[in-house]
């Protein structure tokens, strides 16, 4: 089962390495990982996507909690939550027909064209991982020059919040 684990981390050198090292040392897999500072400069928010059966996920959360730098942690997939990922895609768009077709697709997927050259479009798109995958499929791999994805971040629905 796929899980999104999100945590508040001491904003200290090496904290990220502790999390990443734990996964490689114990043979857990990481599908994606994103980390950035929060409104509290002493904390970072790290969100990662992993998968495993219930026992493995239980061990992962316990081992993460054991790290001194992990302040608080939540498995977002345990409750209702929103997940988002941002993607930047550079696409070949030379002929006017292709350009028009691409523009339509971007609109359907609620993306934005943020940079244009004679031969390319660069598109920004946000959504769940599935939606981004679907867009890539729709565009077709041959047209794609470059894909940059941020990895999943997420937040619980409702009033629940991960804070100190």
């Amino acid at each position, binding site marked *: 089962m796929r899980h999104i684990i999100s945590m508040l981390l*001491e904003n200290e*050198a*090496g904290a990220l*390495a*502790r999390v990443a*090292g734990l996964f490689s*040392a114990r043979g857990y897999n990481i599908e994606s990982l994103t980390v950035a500072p929060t409104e509290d400069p002493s904390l970072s928010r790290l969100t990662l996507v992993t998968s495993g059966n219930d*026992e493995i996920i*239980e*061990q992962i959360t*316990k*081992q993460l*909690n*054991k790290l*001194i*730098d*992990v*302040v*608080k942690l939540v498995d977002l997939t345990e409750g209702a939550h929103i997940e988002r990922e941002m993607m930047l895609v550079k696409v070949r768009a030379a002929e006017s027909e292709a350009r028009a077709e691409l523009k339509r697709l971007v609109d359907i997927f609620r993306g934005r064209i943020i940079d244009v050259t004679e031969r390319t479009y660069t598109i920004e798109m946000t959504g769940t991982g599935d939606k981004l995958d679907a867009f890539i499929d729709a565009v077709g791999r041959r047209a794609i020059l470059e894909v940059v994805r941020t990895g999943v971040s997420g937040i619980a629905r409702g009033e629940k919040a991960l804070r*100190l």
Partner: protein
Amino acid sequence: MTVELTGAEIFVRCLQEEGVEHVFGYPGGAVLHIYDALYQQDRIKHVLVRHEQAAVHAAEGYAKSSGRPGVVLVTSGPGATNAVTGIADAYMDSVPVVVFTGQVPVHLIGNDAFQEVDTIGITRPCVKHNFLVKDVRELAVTIRKAFYIATSGRPGPVVVDIPKDVTAKKAPFHYPERVSLRSYNPTLRGHPGQIRRAVDLILSAKRPMIYTGGGVILDDAAAELTEFARLLGFPVTNTLMGLGGYPATDRQFVGMLGMHGTYEANMAMHNCDVLVAIGARFDDRVTGNVEKFCPHARIIHVDIDPSSISKNVKVDIPIVGSVRNVLREMIKLIRESGRAPDRAALDAWWEQIEEWRAMDCLKYDRQAEVIKPQYVIEKLYEATRDSDVYVTSDVGQHQMWTAQFYKFDRPRRWINSGGLGTMGFGLPAAMGVQVAHPDATVVCVTGEASIQMCIQELSTCRQHGLPLKIVLLNNRYMGMVRQWQEFFYQGRYAMSYMDALPDFVALARAYGHVGMRIDRPQDVESALREALAMKDRLVFLDFQTDPAENVYPMIPAGAGQNEMILV
């Protein structure tokens, strides 16, 4: 105006504030300021080892035997890398040690400077936590945190990496009385509801079993465990790390369990209906094949580390907390309940266990012409049982025989490397024990392969007057390796014969100690007594033992606890 101290002076003051009396270490460029500061005071004694690995093992022996944290000081680069084996060993066995490593000056970090290694990166997977101190104003609080983390909760090693310039710079000294870490709050009290459920299950057991590990020793809970077990009349087994947690001479003790555990302990595990696991972690050397582990049992697991619970074996009633607290709570609840376990069922269970015990699974040939290793340990036990004695060991067959044949009645008396299984542990660990207990008898049981991994420490013992008794069970083989090759590789003894052994008696003498070689069974006891009588000398006893002896019983890897190989 507060006076400013250098980082090195702050370091010394912090250790004094922590009540540190001994530091095990080895100097080098990056820690020279610190050594200079140590030189100018006399409250903290420094024990100079001959290899940094030994410094950590000595600190472990110190900590395991005394309950106080062990402290290590080594230089950057090779000093730090040499210490890594010891750090990993302390991590696996949850030993509270604080290791200070020198580092190149802050402005050179990352430059491949002379004697630079990424100590924080190298040690990260084998420490409870580590710190790089880049600012002298952070030094005192970091050291305070290091000791707090190392000694609280599930203990473990903490590394503090200190760049050289930080030890030269000045800052006002203030040692915080306590530190709190928002992200670190070990759970000490067990959940009352869970404890109540556990007690209910315990009182309903028909074939109960108590299985305890190193957690009982670390948490100083041996008295509580003994009271708990006696109150219930249940059988008790200890892991390798848990020996001494329950008196080995007590009738309720069924011996060690696991790969080389007793028949009765493993059979009782396999057949029990309620298993009470306390401060133990279901290590693979204990469980054997987890699919076949305790197939009939409902399992209660008490441990301070939540990640130890349901890691290898799914348990029914997990209780996170200090084992001492939880044991006290359980004792109280049992007393208050006025209930007692089912007498008739328990009697029948004991009858069964006694039948298993009657198999006498540790029997060996007592008539042999050659010295049997088990015999040496039995005689060692008889010769030391009434004294203030500590026993360390290295890793291999001799370790298992000591665990099987030496009856530890008290906690913190048996010091060995369980989790990492580090050959070379025994001698330096014994040094640390002796430093912590100068008047005690400290015995190191070792093999001729293991002892050579840290043999240079005989020099440390000479310098610091550590009168250890080294009991070498010299079978001329890496015995444990040879045994596996005999059992599982059709006797192809690849590289396990210890060729070109030194003359250990001459070697001991060369280091300034007493050496004795014993070839005949009839001389074992007198040699031991003679050695033990030499209170102020290190005596190296080279017992020429049967090279073909194996450790029995044995659960082969992948087998269940009821599938033991017996003699």
